[in-house]
């Protein structure tokens, strides 16, 4: 019979680390034979108890991959993953390095977008029950869900190629939407032929669905502005209502990763690469196997951008109908859309030399600083918006890429709060109904497919988002602009 067995939480890891400075800890190369570079954990003393030894070992494992540059890094929201940690960042040399699907994960371009409104908190809070119910009915979510949204095979190909831009052209959005996304809502160079039939078959019925687990749609309001200059550039004011959408590439991305991992698992033998864990399967960055994966991954990433675009479009429709005003009148403008599971070909300075590298962000967002040429023009003077969701009961944050991100973290920051408790343990120890009631008392309406999801995603299973964000803020990697308080949450 099945049952739950809890593992011992070995949370004291300090003997494995050496302190470099405030919030920076090193895993020395002596930790494991074969590490090419040391590991680096960006953690405060306060967060030190939130990780275990297995997580440290996973950071060390990534340091063993060929051509890794500087450090195998972990952001303050780091937790145990299934190969790379979640919250992992690793950059690989174009010539000597590799590309690994494990450094991206199955949910390619899982990410977050934030839509502004010109509604004030007081105009939204009294209607949360109706609004969340209407959104829940409009946007398919949960296991096995499918929407009325149907795409042809040709349209799917278009989505693989052009991401959010395709969705806008197909009528799911307004012109400026794609212009407000990371890399304009699509990655160039996607090759749909590198996506197998299975990924197409899984992706088609799931287009325009939120998914389940930690994915969500949340109505929030801004309760605090930390940086008035950046807030003005982003168009944010205190009391303003926002909508955050967190989801990814659904079955399409999962299957793209599964299919290419199969190939790369055989490629490690061909290229004689020793991987400490089969999930870290990889191939030399310029090899056919690696490039095939990379160009298929771009299709998955573009699908995800289109998916979030479509879901945002439906969110607008729900708001328009409820408030009896159109998108324009409601000021429903996209602030930004960031990917947090992705590999990118970027230019970075390594040992004082400019170099083209493949940065893998597995549960980490880009956080490019002011002036960086890849920051969208409208945000270039202040830095790229980085969107950091909290849990259902803790704040989310809008950050801006900080001045030290390029030198410390290959232009990366954390991606969320980071789990500290497994789902099984959460369900065994808490009741979804009582968490829903407790959140309601705090003024947060939760609409979920079932109560067990609320227990699995309870605020206490996550690190405190404020503690996580404080680390990247004090390191100057990504700095606080505004804080968002949840008022209505949709969970699949």
């Amino acid at each position: 019979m099945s049952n739950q067995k809890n593992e011992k939480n070995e949370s004291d890891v300090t003997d494995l680390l050496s302190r470099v400075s405030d919030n920076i800890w090193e895993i020395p190369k002596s930790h494991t034979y074969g590490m090419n570079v040391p590991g680096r954990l960006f953690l405060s003393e306060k967060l030190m108890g939130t990780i275990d030894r297995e997580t440290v070992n996973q950071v060390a494992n990534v340091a063993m991959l060929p051509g890794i540059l500087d450090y195998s890094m972990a952001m303050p929201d780091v937790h145990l993953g299934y190969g790379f940690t979640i919250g992992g960042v690793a950059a690989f040399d174009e010539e000597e390095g590799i590309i690994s699907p494990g450094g991206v994960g199955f949910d390619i371009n899982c990410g977050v977008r934030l839509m502004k409104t010109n509604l004030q908190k007081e105009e939204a809070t009294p209607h949360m029950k109706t609004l969340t119910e209407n959104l829940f009915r409009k946007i398919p979510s949960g296991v096995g869900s499918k929407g009325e949204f149907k795409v042809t095979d040709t349209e799917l190909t278009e989505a693989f190629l052009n991401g959010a831009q395709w969705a806008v052209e197909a009528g799911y959005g307004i012109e400026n939407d794609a212009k407000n996304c990371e890399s304009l809502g699509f990655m160039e160079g996607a090759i749909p032929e590198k996506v197998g039939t299975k990924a197409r078959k899984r992706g088609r019925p799931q287009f325009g669905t939120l998914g389940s687990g930690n994915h969500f749609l949340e109505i929030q309001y801004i309760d605090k502005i930390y940086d008035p200059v950046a807030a003005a550039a982003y168009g944010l004011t205190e009391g303003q209502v926002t909508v955050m959408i967190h989801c990814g590439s659904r079955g399409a991305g999962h299957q793209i990763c599964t299919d290419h991992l199969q190939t790369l698992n055989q490629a490690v033998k061909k290229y004689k690469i020793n991987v400490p864990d089969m999930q870290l399967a990889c191939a030399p960055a310029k090899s056919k196997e690696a490039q095939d994966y990379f160009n298929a991954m771009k299709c998955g990433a573009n699908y995800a951008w289109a998916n979030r675009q479509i879901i945002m479009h439906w969110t607008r429709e729900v708001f328009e109908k409820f408030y009896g005003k159109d998108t324009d009148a409601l000021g429903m403008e996209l602030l930004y859309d960031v990917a947090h599971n992705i590999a990118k070909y970027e230019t970075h300075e390594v040992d004082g030399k400019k170099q083209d590298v493949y940065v893998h962000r597995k549960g980490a967002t880009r956080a490019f600083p002011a002036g960086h040429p890849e920051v969208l023009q409208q945000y270039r003077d202040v830095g790229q918006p980085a969107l950091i969701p909290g849990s259902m009961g803790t704040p989310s944050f809008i950050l801006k890429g900080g001045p030290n991100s390029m030198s410390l973290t290959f232009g990366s920051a954390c991606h969320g709060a980071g789990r500290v408790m497994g789902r099984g343990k959460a369900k065994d120890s808490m009741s979804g109904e009582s968490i829903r009631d407790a959140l309601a008392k705090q003024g947060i309406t939760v609409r979920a497919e079932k109560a067990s999801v609320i227990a699995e995603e309870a605020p206490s299973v996550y690190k405190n988002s404020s503690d996580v964000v404080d680390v990247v803020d004090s390191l100057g990697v990504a700095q606080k602009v505004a804080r968002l308080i949840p008022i209505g949450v949709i969970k699949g």
Partner: protein
Amino acid sequence: MSQKRDFEYIDHVADMRFIAYGGSLEEVFKNAALATLFAIADISAIQPQTVFEIELETINLENLMVDFLSELLFLFDAEETTLGVVSVKEVGSKRDENGEEIWFINASVSGEPIDASKHDFKTEVKAITYNKIRIEKTASGFEAEVVLDL
């Protein structure tokens, strides 16, 4: 459908880890399949309305496990079927034309069209990972450990 099952879940901070047991390779593959399907839904009452045959070959036993379980996720999504009944006919190895060892599985799985009003879904399993995967012979048969990405 009442099926004998033998597996246990081990808590993982973000994902799900299980150990499946079996007196034979066929049994351990079947129990791994049931562990995966029970993670998605309570499948105790699923009837074998639609049957899918699965025949796979690959380079080793660990890859065969990942490929087999991945096939279940594919069928769930693409065929929009809640799978609940598993029959593993044969798991074994043979030589290919180059004399290389290859592992194969012949199995069938069946279930009912997805119906959220009827099926008790628990969570979405995104993928089967290779993370620390192991299939080992034990005193009483075999055991397999697998991490599912949730």
